[in-house]
């Protein structure tokens, strides 16, 4: 006994319609998210560069007068968890252990060493925290993308059903007609595949 093919006209239409629409929505969603990601990354990088430039300027202008400790105290007062300051040998002067680990891993958004203390100023990025805040900021976009995907598929389902239903009915009519004709038993389904007279069977 031959297996009935499951790819009916309805499913073929559905796959085509949904395939194109879903791809478009996914591309749209991906571009939106990518844009959001890039913007946030650029913002963070600019923020880091600005902060490091400000600290470097402070060191240049007041470093010799107030001393290293006062500069470090001033930086600590900023309470910025992304800021890490290392001395010439790579020892941590300011920042958390996690920040130092991020420096070692290379998760650095900006760094500069153009100061006469020989310090390396780093602005790090915690990928997990960044991802969390990105999701929070982009949740409307993600939700809208998922909702759009659902609507697209639902519309695809209705369109494919709407197109194939009349064809299916026509097929049903033909089957009944052949079945009623003299010797209809063999004429209705000469191949014995159960699909004759059902144009939607594909």
């Amino acid at each position, binding site marked *: 006994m031959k297996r009935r093919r499951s790819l009916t006209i309805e499913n073929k239409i*559905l796959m085509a319609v949904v395939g194109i629409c879903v791809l478009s929505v996914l591309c749209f969603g991906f571009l939106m998210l990518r844009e959001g990601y890039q913007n946030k990354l650029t913002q963070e990088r600019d923020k880091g560069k600005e902060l490091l430039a400000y600290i470097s300027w402070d060191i240049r202008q007041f470093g010799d007068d107030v001393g290293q400790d006062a500069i470090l105290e001033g930086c600590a007062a900023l309470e910025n968890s992304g800021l890490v300051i290392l001395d010439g040998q790579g020892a941590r002067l300011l920042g958390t252990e996690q920040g130092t680990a991020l420096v070692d891993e290379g998760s650095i958004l900006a760094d500069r060493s153009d100061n006469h203390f020989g310090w390396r100023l780093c602005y790090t990025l915690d990928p997990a925290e960044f*991802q*969390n805040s990105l*999701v*929070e900021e982009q*949740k*409307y976009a*993600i*939700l809208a993308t*998922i*909702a759009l995907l*659902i*609507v697209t*598929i*639902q519309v695809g*389902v*209705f369109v494919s*059903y709407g197109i194939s*239903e009349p064809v299916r009915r026509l097929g049903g009519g033909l089957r009944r007609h052949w079945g009623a004709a003299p010797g209809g038993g063999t004429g209705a389904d000469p191949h014995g595949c159960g699909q004759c007279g059902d144009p939607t069977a594909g």
Partner: protein
Amino acid sequence: MNKTLLYLIYFAIYSAILLVIGKSSLRDSDSVSKFFMCDRRLPLWRCVCTFVGTWVSAASILSLTGSVYESGLSALTFSVVPWFLGALLIVLISGRLYAAGVTTVPELFRVRYGSRGLQAAYGALLAAVYVLYLVIQIKGFGIVASTLFGIPYSVAILLVYLFILYTSFGGYQSVTRSDVFNLILMIVGLGVLLVIVVARVGSFGGIYSGAAEVTGYAHTGMEYATKAGDLLKPFGQGDFAPLMSISMFFGWGLGLAVNPQYAVRILASRDARSARRMIWISLGLLAGIYFTLSSIGLGMRVLIPTVDASLSTDEIFTYILNNDLYSGWSGFLLFAIIGACVSTANSQLLLIASSCSCDIVGALWPRPLKESTLVNLSRGAVMAGGTLSLMLALSPPASLLTYGGDVWGVFSVTLLAPVFGTLLWKGTTRTGVYAALGSGLAALAVFYPLYYRGALPLHPALPGTLISAAALWLGSVLSRKEEAAA
């Protein structure tokens, strides 16, 4: 993993499953009988799932559990006890209702009295009541979705469109299949939550012994404080005072007894015996679900005697689930609540559809309409009813539990006497039914405003139902000879 991201993944999976269910059901809904009743071919287990799935709504999960948290077991006397008593009355009429062989409840009046006017009038009434009741499901969905994604309620309720319209378009087949899925989700979710609560309290008995000792305000927005032992008393304060709770039987209980959403499930069963078995098995399952829900509500109160936020009753459950009791399961549990809202909402949308297409248009249209036209009209009614409810849900009622009782009370007052009279008393006449409907509507117009102004210390469905029943009897007695002669 990030909480929002986890919830979004749950959302995507839940949506995908409902999409598959809807797609697979669309072909089985090309005639009125298939669209509204699956040709009366559903197996018993699916009938049970759709009965229970439709029964357990946002009012049960959010409002009842929130009320148990606030006021204890007195919330059960106000709602669950009347529901079960009402369900026993359904058993009384199930055999005769099934034998009537109608598709909708209003059709019963046309079959029995040959009155298209009665059918259309009740069709309009049913559609209006279900539009109002659907607000409960949409509000429940909105509360959960806004908790899940941290978005405003008004935006969250728009998401309900994604599920309820699609699953309703596929007719009863689609509704029952999604009910099976949502019920499984809910039972697993509630089971897991009960285990979590029991584990945190220490023992199952600890929930009840701990609840007896709870004192103080449930949350900062609460009007009265709980005294030791209050949570285990059968009656409480405010809405749960003895007179209001007992008279609520006429709202929740009798409203449920004559509710078309259960009548349709009886009519769609394979035979009268299956219909009766469906009711009994469902009641057993529901007893387990309500025991679980009330234990969870009490357990939450034992664990967190006071929530440090000003919340409405309906928001307590999701708030605690998403904050004090947050775990990796929270997303699953919140989607179980969404499932409960969806499974009740799509059943009710289908009733709005049958009321509009079969009862109003079908009865009043001068010539018989094609089956495909009626099915398409029904889909249009689903869309219109859903949209109307969505608009009403923008300013939702304060407590779903009391609001639901008030809406169901409309059924008690207008439909109980006519349906029970028609099925159980041969002396009922068309005039009697008209009299019951007219007097019922008049009673609603008089008693509901008094009740909302606080001038009526009992539920308005009590006097309304008695007046309607008296009008049915009087109208029938006076018109019996005249109608028999005609």
